[in-house]
């Protein structure tokens, strides 16, 4: 019990990772009705590109700079350069994400406009294979890590015995930042309405002069940026490896829980799933202990509960709210 | 001519027609703050064509939805042939002999015309997932019988032979409406609810549709509830008219009388005669 607070905070922190990744799904779904099965691979690409820029290119760049303009190189302290490198890697990763998704949009998604949604979803599944293949082709499959880590362990948050690594605070920060910017973006532009119009009926939207292509490009870009930033941050938790893409699957309960088309919902969904993962097993454990005491039984708490509990909770919530917490109920009318 | 030998379905209900085939009692239906129906009640006699008219948003479609148990009114009852159907599940209503067409076409777009019509017969067929999958003996004979009956009676009546193998989605609007009627007929209806069957049709097709409705009513003895904005049709073919406005009944009576009712003119008809019908007046 004394750890409850720590569990809640950690749960929320993990939840914010889910929230960050889930947001990308919601943004893309909102205007295209497409569940992007390659979202996890976007995360993967983000992680690898950031790592490559940060770790491999840094050395080359420094070397070149130190040779060409030693005085510039000397002007900043190593800590200062570290900051510059982090910022540069960060920005370039975003740029890389944008380039990637705009190319994808142009080559793959645009020709699929107007085709059955399920076929487009299938395309994203195939896309996942391609992206994964590209990553293994370029960077091979070995585990790599940010060296030195960008978000150091020691500047984490101490909560009793638990230390929350600093990277989680950053993730929290970015999730909030994205949420606020999207809220403002949708409030002060008419893009939000256009996006939903496109999702509702592409043909009619086109008949009103809404460019489906532009809307697709915008939402895929935002979705991809969120994902690659997520990849960069998540890659700092425990290094990058080919399984980073599993986030694509693990955040599904979060997306659905929040309601597919709701960005805010994705955040709430992520946090709730995080909490379920951290409090659920504890509660089940306590319940089992109580039962054992009451009936003098010797039940054991099943293991790996945190893998299934989100799904159990998800089904339970969906039975009460079939469109998630903030999703839009489908019109049922004849 | 009720009882004619060519009738697909014998006329239902008591010949005297004392008890109405359908009785709507005090229906109340609210959506949030909006009262779509605020205490509507009327009766439909056996074998008639009963029209329901009223301004847009008056609640006409809502009444049909309540009859089909698609909407669940907060208050009131629907009585069909003496049986209170206000508690039945939606799908059970079809089995009783209530069929309908929809305002926005509700066909199964990816299927052929024939399959759409066959689906109308669903509630009256027996084959299950085992016998159907084997497609032997009974299931096969049943399918063939349905096919023959649909071809020879319904498709023939509605003159849609040439399109029966076509996929419904690509058909023009007017034909889709006709297919919808065909599907409703396949349900062996005693009561047929039609929601704006003539909308979007040109004059010729409207005339055809009117003829079909009259045939169905007179030769097959099916009672028809007809919602229609084309006043020419309503005036010509209906036996009785109910007028709704804001979820309440504001008038009822024979068509000619209703059309002279000043309330009806003010709320619904307006002054411009040309707007009343596609048919020249």
């Amino acid at each position: 019990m004394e750890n409850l607070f720590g569990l809640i905070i950690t749960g929320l922190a993990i939840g914010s990772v889910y929230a960050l990744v889930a947001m990308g799904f919601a943004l893309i779904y909102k205007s295209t009705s497409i569940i992007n099965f390659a979202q996890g691979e976007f995360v993967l690409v983000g992680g690898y590109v950031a790592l490559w820029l940060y770790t491999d290119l840094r050395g080359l760049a420094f070397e070149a700079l130190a040779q060409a303009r030693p005085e510039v190189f000397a002007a900043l302290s190593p800590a200062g350069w570290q900051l510059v490198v982090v910022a540069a890697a960060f920005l370039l990763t975003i740029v890389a994400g944008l380039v990637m998704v705009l190319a994808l949009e142009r080559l793959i998604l645009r020709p699929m406009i107007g085709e059955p949604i399920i076929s487009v979803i299938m395309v994203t599944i195939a896309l996942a294979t391609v992206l994964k293949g590209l990553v293994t082709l370029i960077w091979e499959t070995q585990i790599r890590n940010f060296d030195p880590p960008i978000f150091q362990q020691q500047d984490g948050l101490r909560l009793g015995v638990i230390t929350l690594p600093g990277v989680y605070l950053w993730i929290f920060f970015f999730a909030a930042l994205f949420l606020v910017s999207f809220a403002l973006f949708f409030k002060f532009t008419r893009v939000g309405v256009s996006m939903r119009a496109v999702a509702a009926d592409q043909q009619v939207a086109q008949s009103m002069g809404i460019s489906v292509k532009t809307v697709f490009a915008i939402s895929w870009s935002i979705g991809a940026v969120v994902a690659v930033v997520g990849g960069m941050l998540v890659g700092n938790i425990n290094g990058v490896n080919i399984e980073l893409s599993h986030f694509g699957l693990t955040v599904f309960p979060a997306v659905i829980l929040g309601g597919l088309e709701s960005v805010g919902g994705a955040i709430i969904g992520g946090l709730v799933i995080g909490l379920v993962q951290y409090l659920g097993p504890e509660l089940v454990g306590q319940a089992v202990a109580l039962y054992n005491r009451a009936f003098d039984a010797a039940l054991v708490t099943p293991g790996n509960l945190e893998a299934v509990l989100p799904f159990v909770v998800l089904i339970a919530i969906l039975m009460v709210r079939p469109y998630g917490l903030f999703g839009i109920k489908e019109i049922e009318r004849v | 001519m009720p009882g004619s030998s060519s009738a697909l379905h014998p006329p239902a209900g008591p010949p005297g027609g004392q008890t109405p085939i359908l009785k709507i009692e005090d229906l109340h239906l609210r959506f949030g703050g909006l009262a779509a129906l605020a205490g509507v009640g009327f009766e439909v006699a056996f074998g008639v064509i009963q029209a329901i008219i009223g301004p847009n948003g008056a609640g006409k479609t809502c009444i049909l939805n309540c009859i089909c148990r698609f909407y669940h009114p907060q208050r009131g009852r629907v009585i069909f042939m003496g049986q209170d159907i206000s508690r039945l599940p939606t799908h059970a209503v079809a089995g009783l002999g209530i069929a309908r067409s929809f305002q926005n076409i509700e066909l199964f777009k990816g299927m052929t015309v024939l399959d759409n019509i066959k689906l109308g017969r669903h509630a009256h067929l027996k084959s299950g997932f085992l016998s159907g999958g084997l497609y032997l003996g009974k299931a096969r004979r049943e399918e063939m019988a349905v096919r023959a009956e649909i071809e020879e009676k319904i498709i023939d009546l509605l003159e849609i032979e040439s399109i029966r193998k076509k996929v419904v989605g690509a058909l023009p609007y007017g034909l889709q409406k006709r297919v919808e009627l065909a599907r409703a007929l396949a349900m062996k209806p005693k009561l047929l609810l039609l929601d704006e069957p003539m909308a979007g049709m040109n004059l010729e097709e409207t005339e055809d549709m009117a003829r079909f409705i009259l045939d169905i009513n007179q030769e097959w003895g099916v009672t028809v509830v007809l919602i229609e904005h084309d006043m020419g049709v309503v005036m010509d073919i209906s036996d009785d008219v109910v007028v709704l406005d804001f979820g309440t009944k504001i008038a009822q009576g024979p068509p000619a009388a209703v059309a002279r009712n000043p309330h009806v003119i003010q709320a619904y008809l307006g002054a411009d005669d040309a707007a009343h019908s596609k048919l020249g007046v």
Partner: protein
Amino acid sequence: MPCGLFFETYEKDEAIFQTTFLRVAMAAFAVLLLAFPFFSDWLSGLTNLYWLGIMTHICIFVLGAQGLNLLTGFTGQISLGHGAFMAVGAFTAGVLHMDLGWNFLLAILAGGLMAAALGMIFGVPSLRLRGLYLAIATLAAQIIIIWLLRGVFEAGAVEVSDATLFGFSFDTDQRKYYLCLFFAALGTLYLKNLMRTRTGRAFVAVRDRYLSAEVIGVNLFKYRILSFGISSFMVGLAGGLWAFTENAVTDEAFGVALSVKYLAYIIVGGLGQVTGAIFGVTFLELLHWLLEVPTDALSRIFPNIFEKLASLREIVFGLIVIVFLIFEPDGLSARWRTIRSYWKLWPFSY
């Protein structure tokens, strides 16, 4: 119409193969499948692949994909849980056969029924959930079932002996192939028949427009659950066959990846078409294996880039699927229909 088809009886009009061309083509196809083991060795020598094994898997997956197509293609309910339902069928069949000594036919039937039961339980949310919400609810089924198999039953790996029927043992790859081919054909025929009768039409109605289906008298709940039941029965059956052809059941074979793969089969093949599952499984499996041929050849010439070639093969595979979908978004069976309708009217196309 000068060149349409006319039939004297409704019976003929409702037949599955309506033209002589089709009947001949189908008969030829059947002969080809039956004769396959006799020239598969020759093919294998040509390509350095084992075709009998590949074809056996294709048959098993066709059966499962037909099941998923019934649920997703015909009834409109996406499932991401079919991998797990297949696992249930496989484990049930394996355990009943090995531990309780059930005859293999009974065992795979029981496996199918067990999968059907679980499918129906996890199908209950379909009463309220639509589209992707339902898809993710079935993903929950996938995760929970595998978790149960692994954690609670500690199923791990089960060894299964060969199937025997009336003293005849399905112990060679050839016999296994025929066994699986038989079941795949049976499942396909069943689905085809089902879809042209009352139940099948109701499924499609539920998919296209469940609201009007209800008004017509289709009991939504019944048909949604029924669809889950039949569908997971078929995939459970496929699981049982898997157990008896591979002689081993391990939970790792039936993960989320398999569920996604099943979905890929039917989308690429064509949703809501009985031929869809056949085309989809065949296309994707052949593509996958045929890509192995150049990869293999190249890695002999350039042994240093063996790993790169493996990645490249994955990339090419994904790209081909993408390009294919861009040109044929409705799946292969759509193309097949175009070809067929062309042949129907041949030589007077247009």
